[in-house]
């Protein structure tokens, strides 16, 4: 009797474990759930069309989101006032590019039936869905931050101050911190989507069918490059008062990297602008393969750069050590190596790769 009980107990435990493992794999959302959440995201954006304008921007002939910051700040941006133009030139550009990638490519996933998803893509569904929900939730928070900023700058006590007065700049930095969080969620979503699109194998299928699609390859490669710009400038620099700390040699090195990164972003946007007749229609499938191979090699550099950026931790270097690299090295003895890697990536790898890409797709 005891033996039978023991045997039954083992069987029951095995069944329970089987159930746990089985149900653990059943919580992936379907493509229709993802589509519903994308629509909810679009609704949330269109409910605030006074903030998110879908206009023909300076990035491309395609309609991109641009953000209205309120008439006073928009005025500062259009007049090229320092510290304000970043909102348009960097923050909004990164947001618009990642948003446009999402808009143009989510159909690759949502048009698939659940049966058509491969195991790799199916495994990414839950994370993708979470990113969509996460970004949608952040829209309201961002809008509130923008409205509060616009209201403060329209206030008569602010009106009399110069645009570069410390009071105004401090308020602007506070808003930028909120903007960083918002853009970060959008970039995370676009990166997750590009991984899902990659896993569907659409580019591989085109190559197998001997179809050369320069635009699709260009856009996929460019989207994967967004963290190169976003992680350093928006995430690292934009989230604290980097420019208020001591302007020593290390400060100048990082400022130089940022300046180069801005130039690279200009080139990035320029390549993004290349479309239709400007893109080569004579690029062969073999050449497309070569471009993709070159991009894969570049992504290794990108990963090393992101690892170095993480290891460097500019915020700690700047806030806790006043950009004193020698003192910081006592706590982070690889800081110099990480900084060199970041410099090398932005000054050599990124700009060289963008040059290559520009010439390869034309």
């Amino acid at each position, binding site marked *: 009797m005891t033996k039978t009980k023991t045997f039954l107990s083992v069987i029951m435990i095995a069944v329970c474990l089987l159930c746990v493992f089985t149900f653990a794999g059943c919580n992936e959302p379907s493509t229709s759930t993802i589509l519903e959440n994308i629509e909810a995201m679009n609704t949330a954006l269109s409910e605030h069309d006074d903030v998110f304008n879908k206009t023909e921007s300076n990035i491309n002939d395609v309609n991109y989101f641009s953000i209205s910051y309120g008439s006073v700040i928009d005025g500062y941006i259009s007049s090229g006032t320092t510290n304000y133009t970043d909102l348009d030139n960097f923050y909004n550009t990164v947001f618009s590019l990642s948003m446009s990638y999402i808009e143009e490519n989510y159909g690759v996933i949502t048009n698939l039936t659940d049966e058509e998803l491969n195991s790799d893509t199916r495994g990414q569904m839950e994370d993708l869905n979470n990113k969509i929900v996460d970004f949608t939730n952040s829209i309201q928070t961002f809008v509130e931050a923008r409205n509060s900023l616009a209201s403060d700058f329209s206030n008569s006590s602010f009106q009399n101050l110069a645009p570069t007065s410390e009071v105004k700049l401090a308020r602007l930095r506070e808003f930028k911190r909120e903007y960083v969080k918002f853009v970060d969620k959008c970039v995370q979503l676009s990166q997750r989507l590009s991984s899902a699109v990659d896993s569907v194998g659409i580019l591989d299928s085109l190559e197998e069918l001997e179809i050369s699609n320069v635009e699709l390859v260009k856009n996929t490669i460019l989207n994967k490059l967004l963290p190169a710009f976003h992680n350093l400038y928006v995430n690292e620099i934009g989230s604290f008062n980097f420019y208020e700390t001591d302007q020593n040699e290390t400060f100048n090195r990082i400022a130089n990297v940022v300046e180069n990164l801005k130039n690279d972003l200009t080139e990035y946007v320029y390549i993004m602008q290349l479309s239709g007749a400007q893109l080569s229609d004579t690029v062969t499938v073999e050449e497309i393969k070569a471009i993709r191979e070159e991009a894969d090699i570049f992504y290794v550099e990108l990963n*090393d750069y992101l690892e170095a950026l993480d290891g460097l931790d500019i915020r700690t270097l700047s806030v806790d050590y006043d950009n004193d690299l020698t003192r910081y090295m006592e706590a982070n003895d*690889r800081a110099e190596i990480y900084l060199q*890697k970041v410099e090398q990536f932005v000054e050599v790898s990124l700009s*060289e790769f963008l040059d*290559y890409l520009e010439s390869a797709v034309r």
Partner: protein
Amino acid sequence: MKKKWIIITIIFLIVAVVLTIVFINLFSERDTEDLSNAVKTNVQTGYLKDDGDTYLKIDEYFDVMLSQASLTTSDENEILNAQKLYETYIIIGEFYNKQILFSSYNDVYAKNRNQAIDNLNSANSKASEIVSYLDANSELVAGSDYWQARTWDDVESMVKDFLNYNNLAFSALQPIFVSSVDSKVASNDFSALILSTINFYLNEANENWQGSTTSVSTAFTMANSYLTNHYNQIMSYRYSTQLQGYVKDILEKGESSSYYGKLIEGIL
């Protein structure tokens, strides 16, 4: 009944311990941190630190020994070779310290890692031993510096061991760099050619350290040029078709290539 549960608990505990050990071993086996830490420690705080006490003291000793009028030619060559070899290892060590951090695990890595770590650490210990010896002897000889006590006979074998450890360590680091540093900007045909050529001349100098200093001078010139002064040349190799052409020619023709001379002069 109680006894039975105790037995079951013990069995579970044993299984848990065994699984933990297996997983720890599996992960640590593929870990790339140990090597990069060993390189970092020796380069940033150990015997390979270019302004560290160990290097400065040994280098100073070499300098003073070389000024001794009674030095034989073979001793002089040994010291010259040793001094330049040490200087070259420092330059290459700095280069590897920047690169090995961004490496991934593979068979070549697994094969060479322990050789690199063990010999770097042995070289560091030997360097400390040399410094201790020099310190002890400088105290002993009243009124004169230690190097005037003709210490080379004692130091010679320690230096020979020291160079041997370095040779083994850097011979292991070279294939690790070529195969494990995934960045093609850093690890490419050009950097692989430079490092293998430097390694060749370092080996030659180690094997013939009582003889001519030509080999070590070549290794030093190359290391100093490509790994420090013209480091950007390696970084931009992927984007220079001209340089790629030179490297291809050298790889195909070896020493008979018309560009080989420029390569070893550090001016390719």
